[in-house]
């Protein structure tokens, strides 16, 4: 199962890299295409998501459109983006010990700042060498993302760094455990069946999030993000520990965790804002 997970991780990443690079390459290649048929940037947008159309014949005369739309009016779109974490959603298909869903959303506050939140629920059975326990619960993460990516024309891609405050309420059931005995003179004792449930557990944490979102077509975005979590406070069960916290994931060294998500989201535009400094930027890029 761990190997499967590793492959899924790798495939998701490879996929994401291709997505991101496909867009960049099409942009990078743009100057070269001026001699052929690319007329305006909207062509490029279509180019990203779909399979590229067969190249048009080179005999087609060079279009003059390129010169006439010298400085397009750049308008940033503002709105709400909602989506779902495909990694959690699909994990239940191959991992019988896991059920979970995470919804993600963000709202664009300013040119570079987005309010962001994730809400989800998880039901995970962890089978360690000595312990087997089930964690069930829900979580909410709220914070902001800062988009560090300078978009070209009307592209809306995001490479973000952000912060979240996370909160989870959950319960744990200790299914069975082994007693660690360094002197098994009488042989290994059988696992102790417990079934004890610890209710009303909570956890609070802060996470640093790094993510990429790419517009694949129209208002649909695909992205992934990595989270580094630091536990601030958690109510611990008596004679047990919070070894897994929904939203926080496995606790390393008691207070450190990592997370990953792979999202598909839909952008709902609400209003547009024109950018005044776009002309300057555009010209400086031309040099």
């Amino acid at each position, binding site marked *: 199962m761990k190997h499967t*997970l590793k492959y899924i991780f790798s495939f998701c990443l490879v996929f994401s890299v291709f997505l991101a690079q496909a867009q960049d390459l099409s942009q*990078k290649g743009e100057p070269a295409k001026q001699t052929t048929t690319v007329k305006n940037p909207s062509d490029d947008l279509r180019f990203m998501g779909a399979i590229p159309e067969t190249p048009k014949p080179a005999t087609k005369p060079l279009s003059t459109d390129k010169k006439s739309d010298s400085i397009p009016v750049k308008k940033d779109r503002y709105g709400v983006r909602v989506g779902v974490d495909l990694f959690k959603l699909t994990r239940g298909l191959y991992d019988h010990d896991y059920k979970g869903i995470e919804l993600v959303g963000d709202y664009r506050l300013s040119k570079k700042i987005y309010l962001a939140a994730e809400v989800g629920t998880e039901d995970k059975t962890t089978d360690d060498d000595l312990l087997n326990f089930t964690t069930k619960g829900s979580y909410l993460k709220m914070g902001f993302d800062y988009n560090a990516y300078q978009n070209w024309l009307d592209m809306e891609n995001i490479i973000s760094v952000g912060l979240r405050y996370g909160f989870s309420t959950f319960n744990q059931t200790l299914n069975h455990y082994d*007693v*660690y005995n360094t002197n098994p003179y009488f042989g290994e004792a059988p696992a102790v069946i417990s079934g004890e449930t610890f209710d009303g557990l909570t956890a609070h944490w802060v996470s640093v999030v790094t993510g990429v979102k790419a517009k694949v077509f129209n208002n649909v975005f695909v992205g992934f993000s990595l989270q580094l979590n630091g536990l601030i406070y958690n109510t611990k069960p008596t004679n047990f520990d919070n070894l897994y916290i929904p939203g926080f994931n496995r606790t390393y060294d008691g207070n450190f965790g990592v997370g990953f998500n792979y999202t598909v989201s839909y952008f709902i535009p609400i209003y547009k804002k024109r950018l005044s400094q776009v002309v300057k930027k555009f010209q400086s890029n031309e040099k």
Partner: protein
Amino acid sequence: MEFYPFMKKIIAFAFVFVLSLSSCEKDDICDPNTATTPRLVITFYDITKPSEVKNVNNLKVIGEGMTEGIVFNATATGELKYLANGSTISIPLKTNEDTTTYSFILNSTNLNPALVNTDKIQFNYTRENLFVSRACGYKTVFKLGPTDPLIHTDAASADGLWMQYVLIETDNIANENETHVKVYF
């Protein structure tokens, strides 16, 4: 594009990071220095000079129902590894039962059967399983008693008791740093 290298760096970082995660999943091994399930520590004293410890001679300890003795000397070979010659021994208690019985065979290697002496002690206790950590799971701690914490009897061959006085120093067996039972002989 000016931000293209930046993006590449982030993606490369993400790659390395996620791969490193998937590889460090298995690294939790219980540290041998962690205090886990303790053994019962018995110290032997001289009955004529009760304040002085006394070394036992070729003591072999066998659990009831077991054929081989407790290994006291893991580096020795053959029969020698079951023999204790010091003044202190540590013996494990059963973690899934409330009673453990041992035969203590003094002079076990002596060819003269008259000098080989076997005593039996049945230890009765209550148990509690305490959480240690993810890697070490739970440990069992014991409390001798509450009734008849130990029953000292002679072996079937009725060769007399070599342990003249058995004293419970502490009934809480939570670690191996202290003597739990003192035996005077």
